[in-house]
């Protein structure tokens, strides 16, 4: 009796609905997982935590995939979920990741060439940026969002976002310049 009921429920249209949902989800995951993981990584500074957050984000995305009408908005939507997921992590337990990230980042690279040294330095520095400067920069560089879109995502006004982007780049630029000066004096 229940078998027949189940069969009735899964008629062709339902199956094709399910399939197309699965297909949409597949492409969403394949297209976005890199950016989402990187965003998560730079948000929390830990690869494992970033992986967990990414998992949670995509699971949540599956549950509410039907509410995603505009495929273009997919990234903004995922990032919104991700930020909520990240905030939830802090509600659960307050870890001090700011210590972890700098230690951790040292291991990421074997710095042999000058370029790598520079990149290493930049990574350290991005990790050190205050979260309020770091996040708009991540949204701009990883997410490819405009100032207006970042303002919407972070619930700030556009001028604040532009100021923060300015300061973020300014800090990073200064560090790089200092390092080259130091490098020159060393060499």
């Amino acid at each position, binding site marked *: 009796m*229940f078998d027949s*009921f*189940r069969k009735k429920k899964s008629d062709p249209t339902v199956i094709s609905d399910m399939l197309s949902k699965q297909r949409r*989800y*597949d492409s969403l*995951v*394949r297209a976005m*997982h*890199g950016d989402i*993981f*990187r965003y998560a*990584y*730079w948000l929390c500074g830990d*690869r494992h935590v970033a*992986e967990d957050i*990414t*998992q949670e984000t*995509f*699971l949540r995305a*599956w549950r509410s995939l039907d509410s995603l009408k505009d495929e273009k908005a997919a990234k903004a939507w995922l990032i919104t979920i991700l930020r909520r997921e990240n905030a939830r992590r802090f509600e659960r337990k307050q870890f001090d990741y700011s210590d972890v990230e700098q230690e951790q980042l040292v291991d*990421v690279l074997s710095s042999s060439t000058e370029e790598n040294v*520079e*990149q290493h330095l*930049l*990574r350290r520095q*991005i990790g050190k940026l205050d979260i309020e400067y770091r996040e708009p*920069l*991540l949204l*701009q*560089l*990883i997410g490819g969002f*405009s*100032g207006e879109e970042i303002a919407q995502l972070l619930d700030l006004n556009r001028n604040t*976002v*532009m*100021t923060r*982007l*300015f300061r973020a*780049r*300014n800090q*990073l*630029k200064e560090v*790089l310049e200092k390092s080259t000066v130091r490098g020159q004096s060393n060499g």
Partner: protein
Amino acid sequence: MDELQFRRQAYGEPNSQDAEFLQALQDNPDREVFLKELKQLDGKLDQALKVEIPDGMADKLLLRQQLQHHQQQKRKTGFMMAMVASVAFVVGISFSLLRIAPVDLGEHALAHVHHETVALVVDQHVGVQQINAELAAFKTLGGAKFSAQPGKVYYLSYCDFQGVQSLHLVMQGAENKVTAFLVPQEDRMLLEANFADKEYQGMGFQRGGSYILLVGERQADLDYVKAEITQTFI
């Protein structure tokens, strides 16, 4: 656009396609050099931000989703089963509750007579011992019985009165046959002294710890049988 504004804009969004910004860029060749530097910085930042993605991350994500989806569907089927079970349970409960609801005896007596037309046709020559034997089987009647033959009895059987066993008799009235029901007393029953529909008259009264309902075509027959029963039924 003054220099400060230009620099702010350049730092904020080096790749801005804003017309005013592009114009400002052309106004001064130094600005182009400045912007180039910033774009270089962005290039380096882009590279720096590209941390390595864990191996097979996309597949892992899809696997987790598929597993969870599967679990959910299983849970959903379980939920459906639980729903079906509880609906069946509620239906069962409400049926048994219905039996406790007040019973209008008169209405049922009429319905019963209409339904069981055979009873008014047959003649089983029922004797008083036979009736008493049936009555004795009713524990709820408290040993009530007929002390003598209550006139001619054509038909005798059990019948169900909304879940209560009762005795169905067809007796000879003054002229026509009268149907009598002996129903053990219960609180939930409503007994009306008189009831009727288009075809039949009915009356109800209490006697010997039970309700007695009579249904016949004319009042005279009912009165006749009532007298018979009140004399013989104790």
